[in-house]
């Protein structure tokens, strides 16, 4: 694998962006500056960025409720994302989507989804457009281990396989569907289910290593772009925070030893050591990068705070392209 230095550094930068953005979000939710709640990608940055960096800027992507990492990883500007979380007029969705429904079409992000598994058919449809029109674009569907038990995934895998659609199904297996351990509700291995649909299924056991994720996704994308059809990739990872910020459950469904073990496998620390060890960047340069990202996040928060609330009338806008009735 020969990856350009710029790409390697961009991977670390995007992982840092996700980490610092979500750390800030967590606090902002706690203090009520962000309404509702958020689901952070802290701990899963390698799994996200390994995939989004492997995609081209023209490629499509759909996601789920753990929603900030995907557009950030795909290259979205942080300001409009943060403003969306604040419910401001300058938000990427004008304040109508919020954390759960981020979408940034300018970077190929066709939408996160609050319904588990629901965006997988959408990604499949984006791949259908690519196939019918011969655009050469690829589509990637992010979904969790919980969604791997939704029927729509298998309808999508089957259709994509028989039609040879350029789509990558990427299971972010963080091992818990909210509080439910995946192994208690999931028969067998998710990646192995691909065999039933006659498509490649790959499991990345160390999803904390961005390069391992990148390599698996890169192969799947090359295959899709070459007209060889879809792939399923299962990436083993772990979320460091609670399912959603502020959630307090009556049971400790993940024990402290397990949490400590995974926290010691921090994707950003792992890749930082690799970049330094391989002479790609110095510790000083990476510290400076972190500072830049922190400043970027602060600027995004400032942008969100200073942005105006949406005009009340916009609650009736953007429903139809040809509006009528209350939407006119």
């Amino acid at each position, binding site marked *: 694998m020969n990856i350009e230095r710029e790409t390697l550094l961009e991977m670390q930068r995007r992982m840092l962006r996700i980490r610092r953005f979500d750390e800030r979000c967590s606090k902002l939710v706690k203090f009520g500056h962000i309404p509702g709640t958020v689901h952070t990608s802290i701990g899963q940055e390698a799994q996200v960025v390994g995939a989004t960096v492997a995609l081209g800027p023209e490629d499509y992507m759909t996601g789920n409720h753990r929603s900030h990492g995907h557009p950030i990883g795909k290259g979205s500007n942080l300001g409009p994302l943060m403003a969306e979380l604040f419910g401001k007029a300058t938000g990427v969705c004008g304040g109508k989507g919020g954390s759960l429904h981020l*979408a940034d079409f300018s970077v190929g992000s066709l939408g996160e989804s609050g319904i588990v598994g*629901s965006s*997988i*058919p*959408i990604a499949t*449809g984006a791949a259908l457009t690519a196939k*019918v029109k011969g655009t050469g674009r690829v589509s990637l569907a992010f979904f969790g281990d919980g969604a791997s038990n939704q*029927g729509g995934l298998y309808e999508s895998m089957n*259709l994509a396989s028989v039609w040879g659609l350029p789509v990558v199904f990427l299971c972010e297996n963080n091992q818990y569907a909210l509080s439910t351990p995946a192994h208690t509700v999931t028969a067998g291995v998710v990646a192995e289910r691909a065999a039933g649909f006659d498509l490649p299924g790959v499991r990345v056991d160390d999803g904390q290593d961005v390069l391992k994720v990148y390599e698996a996704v890169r192969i799947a994308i090359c295959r899709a772009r070459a007209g060889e059809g879809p792939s399923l990739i299962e990436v083993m990872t772990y979320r460091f925070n609670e399912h959603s910020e502020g959630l307090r459950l009556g049971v400790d469904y993940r024990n402290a030893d397990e949490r400590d073990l995974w926290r010691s496998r921090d994707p950003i620390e792992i890749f930082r050591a690799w970049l330094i060890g391989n002479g790609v960047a110095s510790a000083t340069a990476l510290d400076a990068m972190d500072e830049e990202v922190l400043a970027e996040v602060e600027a995004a928060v400032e942008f969100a705070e200073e942005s105006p609330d949406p005009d009340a009338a916009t609650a009736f806008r953007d429903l139809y392209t*040809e509006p009528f009735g209350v939407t006119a």
Partner: protein
Amino acid sequence: MSILSYLGAIGAAQREAMQADEDVIIIGEDVEANVYGTTGGKSRADKGDFLTLFGPNRIRNTPISEEVIVGAAAGAAMTGLRPIVDLSYSSFMYLAFDQLVNQIAKNRYMFGGQASIPLVIRSAMFYGLSTGAHHSDRPYPMLMNVPGLKIITPASPRDAKGLLRSAIDSNDPVICFEACPLWGMKEDVPDEEYRIPLGQAKTVFEGSDVTIVAISGTVPEAWKAATKLRKEGISAELIDPRTLVPLDHRAIMDSVARTGRLVIADPAHRTCGAAAEISAIVAEEAFDSLKAPIVRVATPDTQIPFAPVLEGQLYPNAKRIEDAANRVLGLGPKERETQ
């Protein structure tokens, strides 16, 4: 002009739209079987076979997987295609409700206008044909309650062609509910391309004593009722809304303002049906015009049985519509439509 069946008119609209724009595709179960062949001839091409005309890249025959058929069509529509989904029996759409309600209806809105979803879903209501409870649904009222969708219910070949073409041209998602008892209905249909704007009702019959608003498959029944009433000296005005979302309030209101009496025939179930919505609108906006209570003639709130003798009594027919008109005119029978 050519004499076309309702189904032939549906085929004509799709064929013309596909010829005009290569982004239009058809996706659904058994779409290669081509049920629209209406133009005669010996070869498949002569008969207007879609697969021959447009090829398998644009005629997408699917597995039986309604969720991904509808979801993939949505994703395709969000990225540059204009899919027509043939969703077959209307009760099959429940398997795709998540995609319909959570994605198609909401994505443009949730994403602040970034998405447009130029998508048509054709949904066939096979009621009255002894297909039993799993194949006889008329589910448009459920979707009238979902902002973000548009709904058409053509009731004649001419309207079917013009409305479907507008639906395909629209950049918003449109669901076309087709009453299958009307599929064989024939009339002169213009050969050239034409469009009937969404949201424009049609006055089928002008009249001054009572307004009958009839929806989808009840339109021919209401026509029979209005003709019979005319022979008895009663002048009934018959309005077909044609589009339920957006609904042409003005046409209904103007008619009720003149007649002061309203009967609504609706093949959907009575509770929260299209007739219920129209009744509420008229009661709110034109109460002072009303000389008698509004009467709904709908399908009673029971499931659809198989036996023809059981099923046949349930849907609004000419007799029930005529009785309802007589009742709002104070001419009896006194028995109320309450089921």
